[in-house]
């Protein structure tokens, strides 16, 4: 469409490349005033042709000798900036943007943002509080770390261990996230998952932040409240969490400085402990999972992908970006939340939303499908929910209780 109707975009503004395939992002770009092109693997080609979506074929693997090729192609086309949509395309965006903007530091920055261990070190160097962490290359490392962490906590033999968390270096969100409490559990980790990052468990309130950054300044800062990690999230956060907003803003500013971020979008995770101390968990340079963008649109009415395009585009003006974003919290029409459904029974035959859920005035809709298989695979790590339920309503506490309550219900029976 864009290619045939050049008048639908503003030639004064930047030309955007979206790295990775996301229908919602394409829709947002299509409805916006910037020229854009989708850079995606070959399986998206037919679809793009069919629907007249501007498209360049590229298979994202590890950066390699041919990486320059795509950067050159985009540069020749006149693309101004590349926006990563998935964890796997973050370093590609860094590499491409360093060419497009003639700024080699951007590649280094993206590598930092891609590796959880490096990112934690960098944060530590910037004076940001992090938990204890270490890389593990085999199961022995994990057992040693588990023991050492618990010795540090002055646990006696026989006391239950504090758990530790294992995460892949370079995967998004909850993928590959495991919780280990005893040395026995270490045996359940497949060898091919190593190396991993190990972290001590922080007893606190975990939350995430979405921040749109332009000219080194925060333009919109959302706090996403997790009700239960891996299950549910809602925005804007409850007043209890929002009261930390100033502190959180300071933390994000520190983060921006430490990682030298001039523009774009970040999605960090933090813990706030009972004494009000903030601990940095990790940060991603791409849209969050769990449909937080959709929730933001429901709560505030702005399209978060279009916000991203503005934040990345070097031709965005100060006025434009200020006008685009609403005021945080006060402008929200309500709280939007979602809940990730995991089947609780071992054998399921069909999807049925419980009446109490469906009849709740906060219930919006769901994107669950009929079960394809009757037997449910046992859950080993986080991050494999079968779909989401969406809720919307005025009261944060009702929302929190409602989301929490969903954990005790069966959606597949």
């Amino acid at each position, binding site marked *: 469409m864009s290619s045939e109707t050049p008048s639908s975009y503003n030639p004064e503004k930047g030309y955007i490349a979206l790295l990775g395939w996301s229908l919602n992002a394409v829709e947002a770009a299509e409805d916006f005033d910037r020229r854009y092109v989708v850079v995606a693997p070959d399986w998206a080609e037919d679809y793009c042709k069919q629907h007249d979506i501007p498209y360049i074929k590229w298979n994202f693997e590890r950066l390699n000798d041919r990486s320059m090729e795509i950067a050159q192609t985009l540069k020749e086309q006149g693309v101004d900036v590349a926006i990563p949509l998935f964890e796997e395309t973050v370093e590609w965006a860094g590499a491409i943007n360093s060419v497009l903007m003639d700024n080699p530091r951007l590649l280094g920055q993206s590598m930092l943002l891609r590796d959880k261990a490096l990112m934690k070190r960098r944060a530590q160097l910037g004076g940001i509080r992090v938990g204890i962490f270490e890389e593990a290359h085999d199961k022995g490392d994990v057992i040693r770390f588990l023991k050492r962490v618990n010795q540090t906590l002055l646990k006696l033999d026989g006391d239950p261990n504090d758990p530790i968390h294992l995460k892949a270096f370079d995967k998004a969100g909850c993928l590959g996230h495991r919780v280990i409490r005893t040395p026995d559990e270490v045996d359940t980790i497949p060898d091919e998952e190593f190396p991993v990052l190990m972290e001590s468990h922080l007893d606190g309130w975990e939350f995430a932040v979405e921040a749109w950054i332009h000219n080194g300044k925060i333009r919109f800062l959302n706090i996403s409240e997790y009700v239960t990690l891996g299950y549910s999230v809602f925005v804007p956060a409850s007043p209890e969490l929002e009261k930390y907003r100033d502190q959180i803003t300071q933390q994000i500013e520190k983060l921006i400085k430490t990682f030298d971020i001039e523009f774009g979008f970040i999605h960090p995770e933090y813990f706030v402990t009972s004494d009000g101390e903030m601990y940095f968990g990790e940060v991603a340079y791409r849209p969050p999972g769990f449909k937080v963008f959709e929730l933001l649109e429901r709560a505030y009415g702005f399209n978060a992908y279009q916000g991203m395009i503005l934040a990345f585009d070097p031709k965005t003006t100060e006025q434009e970006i200020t006008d685009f974003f609403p005021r945080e919290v006060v402008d929200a029409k309500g709280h939007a939340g979602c809940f990730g459904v995991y089947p609780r029974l071992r054998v399921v*035959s*069909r999807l049925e939303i419980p009446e109490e859920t*469906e*009849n709740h*005035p906060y219930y919006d*809709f769901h*994107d669950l499908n009929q079960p394809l298989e009757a037997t449910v695979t046992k859950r080993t790590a986080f991050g494999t929910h079968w779909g989401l339920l969406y809720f919307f309503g005025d009261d944060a506490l009702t929302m929190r209780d409602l989301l929490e309550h969903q954990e005790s219900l069966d959606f597949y029976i």
Partner: protein
Amino acid sequence: MIESASNTGHSVAETSPHLIEQLEQAIDLLQQARDFIKPDKVSRLFDCCRRIMQQPGGCALIESYMQRIEQAGVFNNTDYAQPQILIPSLSAQALKSADANSVVMEALSNLRLLAVAKGVYKHQHVSAEQAHHHLTHVLAINLERLFSAADEAERTRQGKLGQLSRHLLQHLAERIGYEHIIEQLIDEIWRILQQRPIQLANIKQMVTQIAICQQSPDIDLGTSGQGADRLISSLYGPTQSCREDPGVDVYLERLATMDAAALQYEATGFARAMHDTGLVSPYHAVLLRYLVENSDHLLSEALGLSSTGRDCLLSFQELVHALIDKAVHPASAQAIYGLAMMLERSILYQPPLAPALWRQLSLPLSDFARQRLLTLFGDNPAPEIRLLEGVLCVLGQPLGVGQGNNPTCQSARAISMWAYQDPDYLLQLLVWAARDDEVIMHFEGQALSSKTLPSGVASELPMDLDPVSLILVPHLDRIYAEMGRRCAERESDPHRWVNPEFHGWWCGRGFDINVDVPTGKLVNLDAFLRRFYASYHPYYNGNQPLIHPQPAGVAITDSAMRFIGWHAISILRVALDQEQTMRVYFYNPNNDSGQHWGDDILVSTSGHGERFGEASLAFEQFASRLYIFHFDPLEPGELAAVPETELNTVMEKIYKSWGVNR
């Protein structure tokens, strides 16, 4: 019903205004969405439509939105985008689907055609006439669904979605007009009435709908609906003196002016209509109450009793009068049929029965029991009366007990079996449940109290039941489930121990099952069938008729022979029918026993020597669906006499239906 169709949309607006808001939003989102992302946004609209259509009046609401919904692009890139190519017969499959989106899509398409047929929506591909024609076919194809309650198969497959399909069909029928489907409807009503169910609310509603159609000047039934007269008159005007449905007060005045001959004429008229259909007119109640006061010698006529029933009536005159006085009112007229059939069964001659009924007459109800009755049946008549009506019906029509839309076939079977075999015990249980909210039964010497047990097979309290079941089932269900839990660790199937303890001493302690419980595979098939033949088939058991009803388990299959689930029934008798075929007559707690189990196994409910409420199958057909039965080990029968060829026929039927892959 018909007049409400146009304004039922308001009910959703009143009960759930947020749903309408969400619907508007979902339509707008889809409308605005680019083509390529529409499939993504459709699911949100589907979910919203589903919730609305599951509510009463929801289909009317969606109908009024259909033009916008279609133009937003809901049917894009599907066959439904071209309604002119749609085939009505495919709708049955879609509406039965377990996939919510398939059901919703089909429902939306039909509602769209409805809007077109009504001339509200001018469609570019179909005319109003084509749409109307299409919908008539859809209704005809789904008639069974329209006029029957949900069965086990539907519940297992669809859950709450089944309700949506039903709402849709009812809405279509109301808007398209019953005249187009009325003939099939009448046949269907007669078929169900042949089984003499206790719960008649649905049937009465259907008969009323036909009556409304016939009377409405706006509906041209043409030549259809002739056969409905008997049904309508038996409810609204069985005799000359109430032919024009004058209202009960007017009718009472008329009675006062009648002489003995006229009263007798009335009495026989009502009795004939009642025994013809199983439906009782409210006028009948007026007459009966009048006769008790004024000419009780006509009671026997008015109840349509044979000499057996009349004997019983005369022996227990005072009790019968008391029962009529308390239980028979225009709003509880079915009590009359129950009473008549109870007298015919002569069970009052069992010593405990008459005193037990006296106790029932003055039974105080617990708050919980009263509330349950009020919730379902309202306050006219009072809950005590409603329960007494239910008691008479259960005792008169033990095979008329149905499980409603609940997974509680075992409890329904037990109630029916006790009413049939041990009515005194049933009344005792009912007193405990209705007065004390607690039923205690014993399992292998240990007392089980329904009060302290966790919930049973049904996760929610069942509601759509006859009054007696309504009170008893929650208790029985919990106890039955607990008995099962106590056997969970044992090898073999828990029914082996549960059935005799739960039902009564007459349930055979011998037990056979042809399914290996842990694997679900068929085992021991030959010996299983041979024993069944030798225990139950008169040719091989020494020509011994079955003495007591025996619980049994069948593997239910659908018309395509696919396995649906295990189901509890009881075997009542085995006998030759008029064509000299040996048949098993059994009780099926499903509301409609006339089911198609595939492979030409059509469960018969009349025409093959069945008594009211019995289902029957030829012996080998029945054997081919049986998986559990009880027997008396001391009466093994002549095992060796059962011919191999007969057993092979049965096994073949098993292997090609529910035995596939077992």
